[in-house]
């Protein structure tokens, strides 16, 4: 096993197999949020966890694959937002690598960064696809209010997306961080990119 850099595209088998598991965790998060009737999606926990465990490239692929699979199995609109998921995984992975997952306070910063990334990428998609709305009741109420006041689609859509995405993504990152902290070391080590194996012969 050679030393791998942050941007390596040579994936170990473990990190490749992590991708479907991450997609599964995203699914489960969304299902539990539904079962518990939480007013959030919580559907990116797996992506964030994969980024924390195996780095930005695996995180980004997990995000994109998640939306492709989700599009194939539940809701074709999610294909459109695949690029948002990709960037979520990327940003979370880079920040995790730079040491931003050592405390709760730092995890909140990662959450805000991931949330803002999602907002910045999703807003143009919303404007292009829906004319600016998100389909979320509260967000669209904000959209309508801002449109009535300022008549700027971009501002309205941006605020709509912030209301919808930012709290959700912050909580997703915190949930992923809580799970990550609880993981035993032998699980974390599996995907470690800095592991060096000493040869004995």
């Amino acid at each position, binding site marked *: 096993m050679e030393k791998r850099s942050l941007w390596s595209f040579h*994936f*170990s*088998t*473990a990190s*490749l*197999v*992590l*991708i*479907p*598991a991450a*997609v*599964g*965790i995203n*699914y*489960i*998060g969304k*299902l*539990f*949020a539904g*079962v*518990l*009737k*939480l*007013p959030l999606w*919580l559907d990116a*926990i797996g992506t964030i*966890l994969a980024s924390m465990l195996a780095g930005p490239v695996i995180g980004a692929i997990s995000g994109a*694959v998640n939306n*492709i*699979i989700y*599009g*194939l*199995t*539940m*809701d*074709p*609109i999610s*294909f*459109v937002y695949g690029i948002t998921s990709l960037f979520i995984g990327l940003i979370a992975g880079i920040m995790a690598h730079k040491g931003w997952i050592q405390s709760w306070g730092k995890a909140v910063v990662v959450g805000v960064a991931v949330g803002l990334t999602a907002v910045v990428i999703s807003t143009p998609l919303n404007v292009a*696809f*829906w*004319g600016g*709305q998100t*389909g979320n009741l509260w967000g*669209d109420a904000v*959209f*309508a209010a801002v*449109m*009535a006041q300022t*008549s*700027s*689609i971009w501002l309205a859509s941006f605020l709509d997306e912030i209301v919808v995405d930012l709290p959700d993504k912050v909580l997703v990152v915190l*949930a992923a961080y*809580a*799970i990550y902290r*609880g*993981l*035993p070391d032998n*699980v974390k080590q*599996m995907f470690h990119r800095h592991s060096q194996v000493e040869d004995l012969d």
Partner: protein
Amino acid sequence: MKSISLYVDRDSILHRIDPVNKMVYILAAIALPILVPNWYMALICMLCSLFLLWIGKVFQKSLPVYGFVFLILITVILIQGLFHPSNETPLFSLGLVTYYREGFLFALWITFRVINIVGSFLILVLTTKPSDLVESLVRRGLSPRFGYVLGSVFQIVPQMMSTMKRITDAQRSRGMETEGKLSVRIKAFLPLIGPVVLSSLIQVKERAMALEVRGFNAKGEKTFLHEEKAYVATRSILWGLWTVMIAAAVWRVFL
């Protein structure tokens, strides 16, 4: 185990078309209304996608998906008609509220486009078995290891869903509350998802080892378990779609 795919097994001409061609159709359905930005194009593309869904005998199956889309589209029509920046000509007023023509037309245009794009994706999703899609992509040069990743999601997700059910039952039998106030329900989230995540990560380890001893990383020519499916008119459909797209691009640049 419950399958998670939306695929509908029917006998239609669309089921016998190469999945890659359906993906090119999605590209065309998105690109054409952008290249030729007028009403007729949006309308024609939408009708074309709906017609293909009907040809594929999956039109009825597409309705539940459209149900959700329509819900959002209704709010789009409402909000754009009331607040769109270019609103000038009133259509009708109810008390203090006036509904405008420009916003309505804009919303209608969005509606056509959304129905068209969702329809083009549904053609792929409803008439293609996920495993056929993956195999088709691997034959066109996608890395087989990555093909495995895509294909295995369809096995892992149902597995995890049954784990999830087991863990929910286990935690409930230990007296954990999963209903009631919002704070109670939020507190229940981590004890529910934590064990599922941990067990799936341990499975990742086992799966990785199992794959490696079976030569997952072996170098050399990979072969396929199944013979290549015979698809209908693969070449001509592909060329036809690209010709239409290039024609639209040329129209856009020169006219």
